């Protein structure tokens, strides 16, 4: 049970982030779910969870903007008193081969997926250090391990999260703060729904289990890692991909 605990989940109102928010909230935590756009989706998500008796707030802000990150974290601390868990889940794709990818497309993806995790971490870290406890989980991707045609920016951002997590894990190892990555394979969300059907069929062919994963299958791994009893797991990358990365 996570009663009395507070989690921030970036990109926490839909897809994998939505499943994480729901699970942690159902388990008793207050969840502060971040979103950048899609106010309507966020409002509905909040109402849905509240109907189920969960404690949830939604916060607009861009993780690629350090000022927004500071503001949202401050909002959460002011209103809910503390932050126990930070789940860096917000992510975008802009797929093009390197030959066609421009600097802006490169930079945008890095800015959200990798710099965003840095900005959010900076915003909560002193608070966690003062309290002598915290859990940070970064949602990376199988693509960070394997690379992927047309995803140089995405793969670099997700591989970057491995290096970021491990360095931070080392820096925080004696402060009661664990930092880990979850690396999902292809999961049934809007991000994957955007892949053309023929391409998606090809992807599924390559997955040893021949199926996509479900957001809940990722969420329960995050739930496991943020547990008080998971304190000896740090700097780790836990994969959940139907066997895709072997």
């Amino acid at each position, binding site marked *: 049970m996570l009663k009395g605990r507070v989690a921030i989940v970036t990109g926490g109102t839909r897809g994998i982030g939505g499943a994480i928010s729901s699970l942690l909230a159902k388990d008793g935590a207050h969840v502060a779910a971040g979103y950048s756009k899609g106010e309507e989706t966020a409002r509905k998500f909040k109402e849905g969870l509240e109907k189920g008796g969960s404690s949830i707030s939604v916060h607009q802000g861009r993780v690629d903007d350090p000022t927004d990150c500071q503001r949202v974290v401050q909002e959460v601390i002011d209103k809910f008193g503390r932050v126990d868990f930070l789940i860096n889940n917000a992510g975008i794709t802009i797929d093009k081969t390197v030959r066609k990818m421009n600097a802006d497309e490169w930079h945008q993806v890095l800015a959200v997926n990798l710099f965003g995790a840095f900005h959010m971490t900076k915003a909560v870290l002193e608070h966690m250090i003062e309290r002598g406890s915290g859990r940070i989980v970064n949602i990376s991707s199988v693509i960070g391990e394997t690379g992927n045609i047309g995803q140089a920016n995405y793969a670099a951002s997700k591989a970057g999260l491995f290096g970021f997590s*491990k360095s931070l*894990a*080392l820096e925080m*190892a*004696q402060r009661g703060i664990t930092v880990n990555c979850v690396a999902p*394979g292809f999961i049934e969300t809007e991000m994957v729904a955007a892949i053309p059907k023929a391409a998606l069929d090809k992807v599924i062919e390559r997955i*040893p*289990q*021949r199926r996509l*994963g*479900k957001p*809940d*299958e990722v969420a*329960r*791994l995050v739930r*496991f890692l943020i*547990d008080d*009893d*998971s*304190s*000896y*797991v*740090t*700097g*780790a*990358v*836990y*994969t*959940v*991909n*139907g*066997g895709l*990365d*072997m």
Partner: protein
Amino acid sequence: MGRVGIVTGGARGIGAAITSLLAEDGASVVVMGLPPDRERTEALRASLNGAAKRVHFREGNVAHYDVCKGIADEVRAQYGQIDFLVNNAGITADHTIRNMTVEEWQAVLAVNLSGPFFMTKAVLEHMVERNYGRIVNISSVVGHTGNFGQANYASAKAGVMGLTKTVALEVASRGITVNAVAPGFINTDMVAAMPKAAVEAAIQKSPERRLGQPEEVARVVRFLLDESSGYITGAVYDVNGGLYM
């Protein structure tokens, strides 16, 4: 959990923590072990209250295929099913290669690497038939990093990672997941047998500056054995306090 499974070496150390956690969670656990493990299983049961009735002992050495097959068949006949297998039994025989005998090499490989292969083979047809199974192999941080004086142990534990991934691929479409858990230095008899200075050095090297507890490994195993963990396969989950990243 209501499931049935085998934990090799499940009477002591990490294995005992796994057995306890699973039994408390409602699973029936068959502990497979060497003769001294019979009494250890009794002691473990005594500590378990209500869950004790779900823990049973079968004597057998994982280094012999016929023994593994015999026990798997017996368990299957008695309980009607085998849902999970935890290959945890392990030994060490530490010497630098210059001083390591061929027997020491073979003994460690036989228990730590051939054992998991034999046990997997012994349960696999049954799991394939039922289209369901969970296998967790206990590897070690040493399988990633190597370790002075542990050529045999490190080879076996790295081998376990290769075995895990290969079996995972071969049965991926059969409802069976196969994963490895790689613990760092955990406070058990195995570590207690290390020279004191070596343990101290291991702690100093570990970012969290402590040994792990058997329960901290057991809960990762428990997580992977869960029915809902079906999309996790071929993975190596580290639990090492940051010792190897």
